[in-house]
């Protein structure tokens, strides 16, 4: 019960943040120097047609009035319509956010599966070949820009070897999207019991996920290694060894568990910047994600889309922070919500 109340308190604390985000995103988009009316009036627009477009978009009204309209629409769950995609922003986000989340989560899962064991191994055998391998892998992963890794992987696995499917986004054109439940194609296709589409979606996912995983490998592996090193050299491990516990119990039962806290923190950070920063991967693999959506909206001064994106991201991060806090308490009972 206590925990539930704490959680709702944390959610309540997020409300001023969200209100702030709404105001700031509105003001900032209006402060952008671009003029969407001119941009969208077309090639041969004259003053008159630009004015018509401006009136159509409601941009001829004073800013406070525009803000009131925006808040009123927001209250009914209407984020407005994106000019550059021509769709309601809520629809765009509902389609693109799952695409980005699916890619990012798969990449992070892959990354963790490699980075955490690698970090643990490197920490238990400092300066051995595993440690050096870890260092080399991590350095290469982080020093190669993602679009380069992406194009390289496409060149080798698609163009030269023909192993990977055509890099055409989430599904090749011969498949139909699975009926949307979660928006995650892998999950939706399982729910629909359609294994062919599942395999199709999985195949499309492999290369972009590996690209992103290579990039996110470094912080996770390095953090695991460092946290493990400090955990292994601490007093309670020495005591556990002296008490004659098995190496396995010590390593996974005590050291790793204690080392997980900083790793989870890093994971949260990596997740948030990957979600926003995988624009280049999205472009290379024609992935219809949220990053490229936001960048294109920004370039075109597409107010509704930019505001919707910022708001969605703010909500997502509030949720993410909450999840991480809960994870802390699961891993380390000493940490509670109570202050």
């Amino acid at each position, binding site marked *: 019960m206590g925990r539930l109340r704490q959680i709702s308190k944390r959610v309540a604390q997020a409300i001023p943040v969200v209100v702030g985000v709404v105001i700031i995103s509105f003001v900032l988009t209006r402060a*952008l*120097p*671009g*003029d*969407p009316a*001119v*941009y*969208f*009036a*077309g*090639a*041969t*627009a*004259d*003053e008159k*047609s*630009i004015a*018509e*477009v401006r009136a*159509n*978009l409601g941009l001829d009204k004073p800013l406070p009035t525009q803000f009131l309209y925006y808040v009123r629409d927001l209250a009914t769950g209407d984020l407005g319509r994106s*000019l*550059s*995609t*021509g*769709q309601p922003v809520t629809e*765009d986000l509902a*389609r*693109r956010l799952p695409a980005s989340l699916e890619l990012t989560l798969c990449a992070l899962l892959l990354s963790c599966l490699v980075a955490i064991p690698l970090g643990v191994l490197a920490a238990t055998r400092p300066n051995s070949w595993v440690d050096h391998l870890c260092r080399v892998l991590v350095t290469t992963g982080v020093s190669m820009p993602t*679009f380069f890794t992406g*194009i390289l992987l*496409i060149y080798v696995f*698609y163009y030269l070897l*023909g192993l990977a499917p*055509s*890099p*055409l*986004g*989430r599904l*090749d*054109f*011969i*498949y*139909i*999207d699975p*009926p949307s439940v979660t928006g995650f194609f892998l999950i939706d296709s399982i729910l629909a019991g*359609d294994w*062919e589409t599942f*395999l*199709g979606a999985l195949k499309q996912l492999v290369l972009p996920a590996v690209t992103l995983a290579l990039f996110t490998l470094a912080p996770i592996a390095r953090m695991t290694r460092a946290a493990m090193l400090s955990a292994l050299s601490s007093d309670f491990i020495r005591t556990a060894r002296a008490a004659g516990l098995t190496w396995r119990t010590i390593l996974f039962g005590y050291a790793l568990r204690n080392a997980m806290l900083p790793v989870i923190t890093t994971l949260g950070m990596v997740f948030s910047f990957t979600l926003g920063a995988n624009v280049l991967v*999205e*472009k*290379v693999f*024609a992935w*219809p994600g949220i990053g*490229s959506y936001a960048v*294109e909206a920004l*370039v*075109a*001064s597409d107010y509704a889309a930019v505001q919707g994106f910022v708001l969605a991201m703010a909500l997502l991060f509030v949720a993410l922070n909450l999840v991480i806090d809960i994870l802390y308490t699961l891993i380390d009972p000493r940490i509670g919500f109570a202050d």
Partner: protein
Amino acid sequence: MSNILSRRSLLKAGAGAGVTASMLPFLRAIPASAAGNDVLVAVTGYTVNSLDIHRTGTNRPSYQIAVNCYDRLVSFGIKETEEGLSYDYETINPDIAESWTVSEDGKVYTFKIRQDAVFSDGRPVTSKDVKWSFDRAVTVGGFPTSQMAAGGFKRPDQFEAPDDYTFVITLDEASKLALPDLAVPIPMIMNSELAKEHATADDPWALEYTHKNTIGSGPFTVARWDQGQQLVYQRNDKWTSGPLPEIQRLIMREVPSPATRRALIERGDVQISFDIPNKDAAELDANPDVDVFSNPIENAIYVVGLNYAFEPFQDSNVRKAVAFAIPYEEIFQTAAYGRGKPLWGGKAGVTSTEWPQPSPYYTDLDVAKDFLAQSGYKDGFEVPLSIDIDQTSWMEPTALLVAENLGKLGIKVTINKIPGANWRTASLVEKRLPMHLETFGGWLNYPDYYFYWCYLDGHLFNSSNYKSEVIEELVPVTLPLPVDDPAWAPNVKKMIETAFEDIPRIPLFQPAVNVATHGAEGYVYWFHRQLEGKTLKKS
């Protein structure tokens, strides 16, 4: 949304109506190679944002729906050129109209509508639909309305439908632009009955409905549109305005990265890569499996604009000095990879009305220095050269090369990059960029039409604030004249001469639109620079 296929309706259709496999939009899992001879896949880097060209905010790539899913009264013919097939501006063919007559004074056009033409839902096309569609185009405002105005179509009262198969247009004054302006994407004919069913008090022209549905009589309908991912055209078997397309389906996939598009076309997993970068076009030429078409875009020129609002450029010697200092050949090779047509080093004296035609300027720094020495700025000056971030692929190398050569004259050039959303405001609306790169391409392929937009004082693409008495006087009288009028050719030559002498816009080259095909044929270059599916087939 009834036109958008869902998996459910599809399976139902497949089970119930006994359609053949080739008619099924998608099989659940078949390899691409087995997709059959009637499906073509094309990739582009652009995104479609509406199915209706009349809507506010519809972007350029979306014009393809207007040409693939709708018919017009008339259409342009197709001709063979050195670069493959191209539309033919000289030939205007019947489309929905079977014939037309023009009154003696050239003001009244009477069209006879074909009686066998039907919309994709089976309803016959009548002149009432034409009237409704034209009224819509001149009323909705924005780009459609200004494009209609270019042909002299300004008000609904100019259009009449005396009976179901006769349509009459009355112009305020005769103009050679009227008929070709009926063949551009804007005056498309929509199913007015269907549209009216979806019209509301707030939206009398049903723009919301046509934004997501196609209601035309054209060779294709949009079977599926996943914004940001793909657009699927399905052949309209009821199409009557031409021979039925050989392909059942054309799938347009959006792939933003040019490198990925190149891998796809080289592997042959897609048959068409539309609008590829010049660099890829130059390199793909070497691949024997891939055909590359590079058609110079008609009536389009990449120029360096010298703004008269900036004092040094009011001096004609300074403008000529700049025009002689530009390294044309290097720019053409670096920025365009030799794709398109050079527009420099022409003969002195204008002898033809061909447009674009090479200017008499060429690269000669000594001549440039002489001109600068005669000007009031012999010690040079400083000037920002502005470019659009959205068009850096050609603008950036061009700007760097121009800056380098002008530096040799003592003109210190700094490069100023402007984000896409501001570019039009700064360059065209406010016209405040002292020196800039600019491009205009006219759909109506007449030199006087180009001059109308780019050289008349205050007109949108006259980003140089140029004003010449000769041009102010000539353009308005020449624009409506038919090209066989005895005054037309001399007037046009005089305009070109004046533009080259005053040189407010320095022509660099005529850009090309590049398309690569691998296993497809029948590609036709169109002035609207969109992919038309009706002529395409697998090879």
